[in-house]
């Protein structure tokens, strides 16, 4: 027990000794992991928002309620006759509400606020070729039964290509920053060893075990990594909280599930500790030879 406290105490002491370098290392861990975590959340948001499109809903035609189901069915038949249309499905108001419930299953506040009746019926169109959306859109404009036409293709294609580019850049940055974070941690450990070289020399001389000498340094690296990870998790959760409050459109979700956040928060935090472990092991490698 006293040994354990000794080891922790040593790690903390050397912490205080190099506030500046240690802060730099923690900052690097923080930035790289915050970036990684935000990228994950962003990616999840894109997935959530494109899922309908991926299921083939290229165009959504929202319908007027007051013209009745017969007008709706007529329009469906008309649309199905278009050459460009591969398939089209009618979604009545009940189905619309059900879908809405599924989308916001984890957000009962919104569900409570929305009256099932305000959700309109719609026709979901899948095109033979997504590039043909304009001619379909053109023919549907002006139909009395059409309330609004949402073309998802263009926006989503652009979004997806941007996302792909961003992910590539993001992965590159995360790798680069994580590497530099590990190197910075290794550096703080080297400085800590240097600051305590006299003590380490005496410890070796009187026969302290190799791991007994190493553990405080390893702990120091792990603690730095965990602090950086915790800050990153905190920042991203806070950012997500702010962002999820700004959603103005029901159909663009800026909120991911709590489950997703929890799982990745834990993973990012632990990864911070792991990066610290790797960093301190690197920093120790050359020095503590017997």
């Amino acid at each position, binding site marked *: 027990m*006293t*040994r354990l406290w*000794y080891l922790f105490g040593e790690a903390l002491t050397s912490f205080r000794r190099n506030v500046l370098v240690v802060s730099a290392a923690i900052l690097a861990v923080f930035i790289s992991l915050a970036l990684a975590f935000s990228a994950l959340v962003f990616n999840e948001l894109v997935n959530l928002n494109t899922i309908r499109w991926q299921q083939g809903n290229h165009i959504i035609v929202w319908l007027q309620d007051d013209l009745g189901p017969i007008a709706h069915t007529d329009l469906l038949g008309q649309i199905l006759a278009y050459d460009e249309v591969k398939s089209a499905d009618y979604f009545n108001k009940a189905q619309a509400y059900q879908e809405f419930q599924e989308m916001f299953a984890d957000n009962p506040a919104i569900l409570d606020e929305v009256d099932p009746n305000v959700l309109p019926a719609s026709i979901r169109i899948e095109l033979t070729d997504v590039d043909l959306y304009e001619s379909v859109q053109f023919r549907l404009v002006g139909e009395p039964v059409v309330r609004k036409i949402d073309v998802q293709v263009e926006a989503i294609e652009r979004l997806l290509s941007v996302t792909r580019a961003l992910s590539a850049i993001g992965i590159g940055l995360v790798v680069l920053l994580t590497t530099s974070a590990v190197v910075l941690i290794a550096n703080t450990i080297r400085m800590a060893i240097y600051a305590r070289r*006299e*003590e380490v*020399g*005496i*410890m*070796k*001389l*009187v*026969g*302290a*075990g*190799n791991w*007994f*000498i190493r553990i405080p340094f390893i702990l120091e690296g792990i603690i730095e990594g965990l602090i950086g990870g915790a800050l990153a998790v905190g920042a991203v959760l806070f950012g997500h909280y702010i962002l999820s409050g700004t959603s103005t459109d029901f159909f663009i979700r800026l909120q991911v599930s709590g489950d997703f956040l929890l799982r990745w928060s834990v993973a990012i935090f632990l990864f911070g500790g792991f990066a610290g472990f790797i960093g301190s092991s690197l920093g120790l490698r050359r020095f503590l030879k*017997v």
Partner: protein
Amino acid sequence: MIRLEGVTKVYDGGIVAARDVDLDIRKGAFVFLVGPSGSGKSTLIRLCLREERLTKGVIWVAGKDISTLPNWKIPYLRRSVGTVFQDFKLLPSKTVGENVAFALEVIGRPRAVARRQVQQVLELVGLSTKADRYPHQLSGGEQQRVSIARAFVNRPPILLADEPTGNLDPATSVGIMRLLDRINRTGTTVMMATHDHAIVDAMQRRVVQLDRGRVVRDQRESGYEGNLDSTIEGKA
């Protein structure tokens, strides 16, 4: 206790600091290593601690062949060998008591046991009233006593000293030698490297003289320059 057989040490630069050294030091012996600067005294001590690896030969310390000792066992070797150096090697931020206790803490002795042992060894070296002082508040001789206390607190069977009186005036040196002699009388094997003629002459113990890495003299109960009437330590 310590046996060297054909020990040769060549440093990276090609300097041969030990050349085919044979030495047999029995339990309870007191041996001086003498010789001019650069003759290899410190090298032999470092080899016995495995601070350096030997190039050729075999070294036995406390019944173990340390030339083939795996790295992870080195701490155990060092727990059975106390060390004292010219520059004391005390931690300035720790008190006398803490410096001595440090040697026990880092090998995992329980606090209560450590406290008792520290108290005892400080009495042995005559510093029990100064346990709460810091090294800079002590004279050189007192600091060396602390370092001897730290080396001996764990009751190792062997004590290696590299010029322990090198920084001290003659009167203080005599005090340190009395202390080492007392420790030797408890059965501890002592090997000490020194330049100090007066001490070696006064003690009349076994003297091993080195020159450019070679043993050129090994005499029982000798002075620094050797006595005509003393015998060469052949079999012993």
